[in-house]
């Protein structure tokens, strides 16, 4: 382990990933402290989703290493399912289990992965659903919920595993504009409560107000990273400035 990284919750080191001829990630490194919220921004096709998936090895990186609290996630010997149970993942298109009602979606992980008793898992699932503002929707199937509600169920599903950190991959990109706010609100509250999070998003308002640090990625590398105030007011790299002005033009600065 490296010097100065002992206290990092997550350490990502020199991740490379190639699909065919195209190298999607060309050596990405960063670290994340406990309780920190990091926002990753960057143009489409830059490898942001790939990077998130490399962290819990939903995608196997070609090279590089990841540590979670000093345990090497990328080690061949590690039981990856145990690691994944500690890392929440929220998908752009929710991926709620189609055949399960909201309550069952949330308690499946605790029961099947953590071995929690049914009554305990049920209680927990109800609490998590209430926490994301969905008390009363326990019996609704995903298709019976709005996009915003589905995404909140999927956040509850992640929370029920009591994860050490949660990875969000563009959690509001598939939502109608009027539904974005309810999801961002939940995420802001999570950040306030001290949850450790990495969020890929185009929501600059959220990034500005919630992120402890913003990473700007382009073409498989980190171009620039720093606290939001610095990135927004005095970007060091011209590409960062260019991207930020373009993105605010495109998405506005809706606050969560």
């Amino acid at each position: 382990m490296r010097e100065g990284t002992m206290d990092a919750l997550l350490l990502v080191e020199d991740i490379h990933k190639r699909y065919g001829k195209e190298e999607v990630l060309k050596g990405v490194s960063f670290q994340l402290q406990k309780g920190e919220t990091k926002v990753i921004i960057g143009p489409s096709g830059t490898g942001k989703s790939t990077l998130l998936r490399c962290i819990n090895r939903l995608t196997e990186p070609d090279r590089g290493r990841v540590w979670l609290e000093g345990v090497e996630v990328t080690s061949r010997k590690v039981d990856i399912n145990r690691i994944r149970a500690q890392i929440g993942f929220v998908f752009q298109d929710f991926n709620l289990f189609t055949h399960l009602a909201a309550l069952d979606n949330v308690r499946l992980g605790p029961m099947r992965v953590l071995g929690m008793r049914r009554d305990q898992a049920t209680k927990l699932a109800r609490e998590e659903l209430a926490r994301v503002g969905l008390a009363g929707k326990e019996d609704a199937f995903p298709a019976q919920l709005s996009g915003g509600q589905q995404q909140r169920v999927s956040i509850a599903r992640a929370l029920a595993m009591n994860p050490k950190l949660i990875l969000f991959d563009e959690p509001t990109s598939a939502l109608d504009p009027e539904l974005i706010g309810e999801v961002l609100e939940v995420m802001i509250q999570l950040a306030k409560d001290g949850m450790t999070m990495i969020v890929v998003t185009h929501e600059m308002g959220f990034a500005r107000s919630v992120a402890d640090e913003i990473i700007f990625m382009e073409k498989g590398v980190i171009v620039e990273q720093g606290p939001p105030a610095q990135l927004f007011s005095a970007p060091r790299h011209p590409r960062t400035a260019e991207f930020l002005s373009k993105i605010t033009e495109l998405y506005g600065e809706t606050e969560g």
Partner: protein
Amino acid sequence: MEFFLKLGQVGQHLPMLMRASVVNLELLGALLVIGFLIGTLVALLQVYGGRVLSTGASVYEWVFRSIPALVLLFLFYYGPSHFGLDIQSFLAASLALGFRSSAYQSQIFRGAIQAIPSGQMMAARALGMSKLSAIRHVILPQAFRLAIPGWSNEYSSVVKDTTLAYAVTLNEIMRYAKTIMDRQYDLAMATFIVVALVFLVFTYSGNALLGLVERRFRIPGLQMPGATGAVL
């Protein structure tokens, strides 16, 4: 007119015909169970097995789909005795038709599994579920529901194919019908018409039952892509 008289005469044999038809239903149950278990396994191997396993499963499927049911029946009935083993005709028929059905069922299940968006597996794995656990708790519950219509077709087809076990001396309904005819040749038409009607009942009541099952287990938003029907 005369035909209805004959039908009346066959009516006297009806209790025995129905008793013989129970053998068909028993065979149907056995072959469907065998076909279901092996078919599920073969489909899973085809989708999730490595190169070798999925190729093996596909070859299995192709062979059992390509050989006529009657030839399979003969192979399973006479094959074991070739190796010094005795086999009852019921067991031979269950295995022959069961393996054959497994090849057709695997195709149905494979289609259903492949119709499930890849995000479902990914979300399950992201929770830390093992591949097997994800298959069991996320993929199969959805796949089986999606497979019901295709499975109804398979049911319709194999319920009738149970009559082929006649060829390996199983005392099912066709064999019994034939003995009625052998005793009284002028009853042939009436007898086989009655048998046909019995199967119409089996086919349509089975399909109605499966329709009920499908509705009972239907889940909003879970359907084959391209399928029509309200989402809610």
